[in-house]
């Protein structure tokens, strides 16, 4: 049946193809206002007050409605948004932000430093159930000396702090003195950003429209619609039928399913490295993994490129450490582990593991060289990576079992109590290189992120210095060393960095791929007048 359908389609689209010209290449298309940009969200946004929301659907919408004092520009450098400029005192303790004048909230009220001060106080208010208080708790003093100046002083120099002022600023005049969790703004947000909220039909769609009074100029697009479509196959069908203008593709969709003339006529595809990597992490409290040679042998036995080719269809890069390869902090000179089963076998022999009984699995005394990789259900990429690793490790005489467990159970019963041998997981970071919470030896407590119990005094020291140092060149030296130690010690075997694979309808112009991705200049995206699809 499938084959018949495919044939039918070829015929249908084959005829159309000859008549249509290829849009998207004409240089004389001028920017024009209007049209609607439709994208899909897998989940319903939970809350449109950024202080309360931690899901990606909410963050994406909030990112268009609200703004922070600063943000990362297309080259991942901090630039001012609500702050026009800022100064850092020589002792690195005091930041002074000079705020933009004439900015208005969507309800017409002026934006001032009182809003910033209020936002700060709200984040540290114990009655406000937010996940983002930590960065602001380092602040010793916050003040607003005049309506367009905001000043914070820290107890000690804290480099990640600057980034934290990219946090969305909330309107004081609508929230002060109220129970934030009951605020109507959580369903109908009012910010200062380039798009303002229009309506939200629960379970169906959420509509934003361009803010005509936006300080950096009105966005070209008249409207942005988020359709809530919980199934990714449905999203893909909607994209093909024109019901969506944008979608992040999976590797298989990118590589094969969209490789048709019809799709190429309607969409532009982009690819760039995402901020996230997958790893095989070892529980360092297990005696087996305390032997460095075992970890290095596994690293040599795994063929990372094979995993990328098999799981990501080649749409990714091998990871050598916690940073993605195109950032300033990435250290390209660390020790790498080429796929080398011979070397892996030698290391295992050196560590005393031999296959004396000839059953294909090495042993030392009565103990077999065997362990279990546990990972969470619902992530196909991880399950497949585990299978590929299992096969390669078998070749060098290590018996690997795979266990796949539902997310909550996975964390509660396996990861946090330390009840696992090895796990395949991933971390998503950002441009800020601070990795204190994941690698510092003080973060091995219950439910903390260093659940593999990695302890290295030099790494601790580097991480502490890294977050106190503001100078980028200095920081680079610190984090280069940090990456070199991780690469040598292999507490994780870093597997791969995946790529973001967005497809955008071809009528949208002005898209500039950059290290930060493609959405950094979303307000400058436009559709030439002749190609606009939605008149109202």
């Amino acid at each position, binding site marked *: 049946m499938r084959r018949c359908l495919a044939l039918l389609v070829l015929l249908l689209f084959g005829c159309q193809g000859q008549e249509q010209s290829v849009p998207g290449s004409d240089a004389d298309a001028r920017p024009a206002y209007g049209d609607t940009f439709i994208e899909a969200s897998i989940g319903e946004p939970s809350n449109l007050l950024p202080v309360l929301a931690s899901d990606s659907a909410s963050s994406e919408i909030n990112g268009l409605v609200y703004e922070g004092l600063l943000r990362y520009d297309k080259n991942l450098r901090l630039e001012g948004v609500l702050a026009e400029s800022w100064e850092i005192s020589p002792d690195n303790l005091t930041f002074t932000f000079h705020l933009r004048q004439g900015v208005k909230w969507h309800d017409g009220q002026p934006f001032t430093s009182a809003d910033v001060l209020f936002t700060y106080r709200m984040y540290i208010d114990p009655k406000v159930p937010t996940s983002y208080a930590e960065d602001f708790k380092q602040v010793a003093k916050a003040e607003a000396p005049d309506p367009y100046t905001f000043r914070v002083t820290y107890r000690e120099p804290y480099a990640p702090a600057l980034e934290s002022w990219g946090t969305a600023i909330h309107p004081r005049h609508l929230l002060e003195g109220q129970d934030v969790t009951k605020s109507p703004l959580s369903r109908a947000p009012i910010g200062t950003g380039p798009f303002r909220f229009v309506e939200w039909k629960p379970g169906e769609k959420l509509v934003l429209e361009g803010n005509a009074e936006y300080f950096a100029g009105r966005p070209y697009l008249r409207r942005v619609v988020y359709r*809530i479509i919980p199934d990714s196959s449905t999203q893909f069908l909607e994209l093909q039928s024109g019901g969506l203008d944008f979608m992040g593709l999976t590797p298989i969709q990118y590589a094969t399913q969209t490789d048709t003339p019809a799709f190429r006529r309607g969409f532009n595809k982009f690819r760039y490295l995402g901020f996230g990597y997958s790893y095989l992490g070892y529980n360092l409290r297990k005696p087996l993994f305390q032997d460095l040679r075992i970890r290095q042998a596994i690293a040599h036995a795994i063929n990372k490129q094979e995993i990328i080719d098999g799981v990501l269809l080649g749409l990714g890069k091998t990871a050598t450490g916690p940073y993605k390869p195109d950032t300033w902090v990435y250290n390209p000179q660390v020790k790498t582990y080429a796929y080398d089963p011979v070397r892996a076998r030698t290391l295992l022999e050196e560590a005393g593991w031999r296959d004396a009984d000839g059953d294909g699995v090495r042993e030392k005394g009565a103990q077999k060289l065997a362990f279990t990789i546990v990972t969470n259900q619902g992530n196909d990429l991880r399950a497949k990576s585990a299978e590929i690793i299992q096969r390669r490790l078998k070749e060098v005489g290590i018996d690997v079992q795979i266990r796949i467990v539902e997310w909550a159970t996975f964390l509660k019963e396996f990861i946090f109590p330390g009840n696992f041998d090895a796990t395949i997981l991933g971390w998503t970071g950002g441009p800020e290189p601070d990795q204190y919470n994941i690698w510092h030896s003080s973060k091995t407590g219950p439910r903390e992120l260093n659940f593999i119990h990695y302890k290295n005094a030099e790494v601790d020291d580097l991480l502490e210095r890294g977050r106190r140092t503001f100078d980028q060149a200095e920081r680079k030296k610190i984090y280069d060393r940090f990456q070199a130690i991780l690469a040598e010690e292999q507490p994780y075997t870093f597997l791969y960095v995946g790529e973001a694979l967005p497809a955008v309808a071809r009528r949208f112009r002005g898209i500039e791929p950059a290290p930060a991705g493609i959405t950094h200049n979303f307000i400058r995206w436009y559709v030439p007048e002749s190609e606009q699809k939605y008149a109202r």
Partner: protein
Amino acid sequence: MLVYLAKRLAMMIPLLIGITLISFVVIHLAPGEPTDLQTDLNPKASAEMRERLRERYGLDQPLAVQYGRWLAHLAVLDFGESFAQDHRPVLDKIVERLPVTIMINLLSIAAILAVAVPLGVMAAVRRNSPFDKVTTVLVFTGFAMPSFWLALLLMDFFGVRLGLLPIAGLRSIGYEYLSFGRQVWDVVSHLILPVFISAFGGVAGFSRYMRSNMLEVIRQDYILTARAKGLPEAQVIVRHALRNALLPVITILGLSVPGLIGGSVIFETIFAIPGMGKLFYDGVMMRDYPLIMGILVIGAVLTLIGNLLADLGYALADPRIRRS
């Protein structure tokens, strides 16, 4: 009759409490808590903030206390506030999803009855005929076919390839600007595939059921009598046989009352329909206890009422039962 009714209603209260107690305990047995989604593996969340969240939700109390509190609120019909990050009242969230779920389920039950009853009757009357054999094969194919797969195939065919029907959702973008007639067609065309899919498996099961009922009735003596009287075959089948074969349908309809509000996660997810099934599923995934309990209570009440209605309806329709 009234005494019977009162008794039945009174019996429902302990039953309902039992159901809620078991559900409450079972839900809390599952590992994971509502706060996890916000705090686990989140580098920005501290232990202190986790404790604060737990306190806010009352999760720091013993289970018995939590259940007692919940029950006390329920007694005044307060389902509480969702643990999800929107902090909305559970009742609001349920009420918002009910109309579309009930509409699709009613349409689908109507479609099932309209198709399955004639199909079952015909198959029974012409037992072992080619028609019977073909429907049997089709019905079992329909039974065995995974509905999500069929849904995707149909969406791909009618939506992407032919472009005749919309793929997902309930309304098109720009629905507000359409004329009234177009709006009606817009909604209808969005409903065709979901209703078809949700009725599809039901038709298969129900027509089988109808067929075996009918076969049993046709063998009865009074059918023989009717035929012996010389009644035309159509009248024998429709007036004498079908009416008796339809009796058990009352029970089925009674049992489907709770089903009216319980959607299906699978087709709601695929068709992007904001229904109860998805709400419940999401609630379970994020351990939103008040929401889960709210839906379970409403479901339990409706099941009990549906059973009661079925029993009463049966008594009304069948004099033999009324007398005994």
